[in-house]
């Protein structure tokens, strides 16, 4: 019954992706800048959702890796004078390398302590960034003009380029995460999401899966950090490592949209940007409203908007699951599951 709805949803999604791909020809500079930020936020939301929604790692220190990515990019380009195209992958690699010792420390902790641990780790990284020579200390510094110009000689070209890069990042982050969830590891991860103890009893290595997940997010967070540096054309401890922008807002987004799904973070990010555009004039009220909505969702619909859609029987637009496939009967037994015949093959 929901097939037309599903096709409709997929059509809207495909149209949205096509419009984004054609963005530079369709939208003005202002819209492109907002969308650039939107793609960064989608990437961050996908990563926070992977950790919190699947691996049960509640991070409030995601901004730490965003900041590392931004600072690494600044270091490789402005200080070491490397090409920006070499600096981008190196920034991702640096974030991954920094994530290893961070993980070794915070994985000794669980639940709320782990959350606090991620926050402390991010703060330490921010303090170190503020002390690094050449990075402008506590007030930060601008990206040198020659670095910026490598992305395009004219402002309009650069806006297009930043847009393309952050769109590419969001698409890759999405496709890679989708592929991860479809894999054997992702199967275990999804089982962990639903019941951690039972996942372990079914043979899922909870420790290795968690480690992989945490390290998986690091390079994407670092790349998002590169994009924040390009968007602002500067790095600064308080901006590059901003907990509100890169973690708290992201938590709102994932919680409202639907934790533990691929659709939820995207839905939440769209909602977040729409609310922000509409309510920008209300200043603090906007944040208060966002908080109220989040609390409402946690109380009444813990799996968010997408969880509500699922409960109403809406199938996943972007399924990461495994259909029973050929060999299994296609028809599902009557509405009452209890009527299923027992042990047809035996006896």
């Amino acid at each position: 019954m929901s097939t037309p709805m599903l096709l409709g949803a997929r059509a809207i999604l495909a149209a949205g992706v096509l419009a984004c791909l054609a963005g530079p020809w369709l939208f003005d500079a202002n819209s492109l800048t907002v969308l650039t930020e939107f793609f960064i936020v989608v990437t961050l939301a996908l990563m926070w959702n992977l950790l919190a929604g699947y691996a049960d790692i509640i991070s409030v220190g995601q901004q730490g890796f965003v900041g590392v990515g931004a600072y690494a990019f600044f270091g490789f380009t402005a200080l070491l004078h490397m090409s920006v195209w070499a600096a981008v992958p190196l920034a991702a690699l640096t974030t991954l390398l920094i994530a290893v010792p961070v993980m070794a420390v915070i994985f000794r902790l669980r639940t709320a302590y782990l959350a606090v641990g991620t926050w402390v780790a991010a703060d330490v990284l921010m303090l170190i960034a503020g002390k690094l020579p050449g990075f402008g200390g506590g007030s930060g510094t601008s990206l040198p003009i020659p670095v910026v110009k490598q992305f395009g000689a004219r402002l309009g070209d650069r806006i297009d380029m930043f847009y393309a890069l952050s769109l590419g990042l969001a698409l890759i982050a999405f496709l890679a995460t989708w592929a991860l969830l479809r894999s054997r590891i992702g199967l275990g991860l999804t089982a962990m999401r639903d019941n951690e103890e039972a996942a372990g009893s079914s043979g899922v290595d909870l420790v290795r899966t968690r480690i992989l997940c945490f390290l998986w997010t690091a390079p994407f967070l670092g790349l998002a950090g590169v994009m924040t540096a390009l968007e602002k054309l500067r790095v600064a401890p308080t901006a590059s490592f901003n907990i509100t922008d890169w973690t708290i807002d992201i938590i709102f987004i994932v919680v409202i949209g639907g934790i533990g799904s691929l659709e939820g973070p995207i839905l939440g990010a769209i909602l977040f940007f729409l609310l922000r555009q509409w309510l920008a004039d209300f200043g603090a009220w906007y944040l208060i409203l966002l908080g109220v909505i989040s609390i409402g969702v946690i109380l009444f619909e813990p799996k968010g908007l997408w969880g509500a859609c699922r409960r109403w029987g809406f199938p996943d637009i972007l399924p990461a699951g495994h259909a029973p496939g050929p060999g299994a009967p296609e028809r599902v037994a009557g509405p009452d599951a209890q009527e299923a015949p027992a042990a047809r093959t035996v006896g």
Partner: protein
Amino acid sequence: MADRNETVSAGGPPAEAVILALAGVSRRFGGLRVIEELSLTVRPGEILGVLGPNGAGKSTLFNLIAGVLPPNEGSIHIMGRDVTAMTVWRRRRLGVGRTYQVPKPFAHMSVFENVLVAATHGGGLSIPAGRREAQRALALTGLAALAAKPAGTLSLLNLKRLELAKAVAGKPRLLLLDEIAGGLTDAECEDLLAILTAIHREGATIVWVEHVIHALKRIASRLAVLHFGAIICEGAPDAVLADERVREVYLGA
């Protein structure tokens, strides 16, 4: 017997003849002593029935064997290996499948995916091989027609079947079954016994905790009675059920 060598300590039966050996195992929850100095040996090919009043510690015993809980004292050997400190997932891969008395489905995954998790991770199979194994386990437990349903929508009866399908996926050598026959009609119980007989014939050793004694008696080769965390009687089914103390604590006669 508390040594943690790779093999069962001398004095016990030789390693190959024992699939599961518990030696002096104790487990407390705070001040509550749930399992006390329990020793137990299970040989390959056995079907051991475990009886005991509510709260005797049967499910806790399974949690200790499967590795969900560590014991406070004692050691556990499986197939000659000391698994006392081994994680639950490594024990599952070694060949210990278990069902939960209160089903723990992956509620937002399909029935098929639930079993696929156990086949790929627990059975160590690739996804294509795991798919075939999952389909086998679903057919065996009579769940094939429900494969595409979200596990969270199943009835309790089918959730128990799903527990069994997850436990047998990947053909573990030791199966721990926790009260899977409760609430079945006579016909369903016959089906279940036929399934268990088939699984047993394929080479699985079974430890079955069950209150439905008439079902247990039909296939168990040995019974053990647990009372306040200790085995008070074990042996041939008829002898155990006729035992004075067993009738007293368990059958209330």
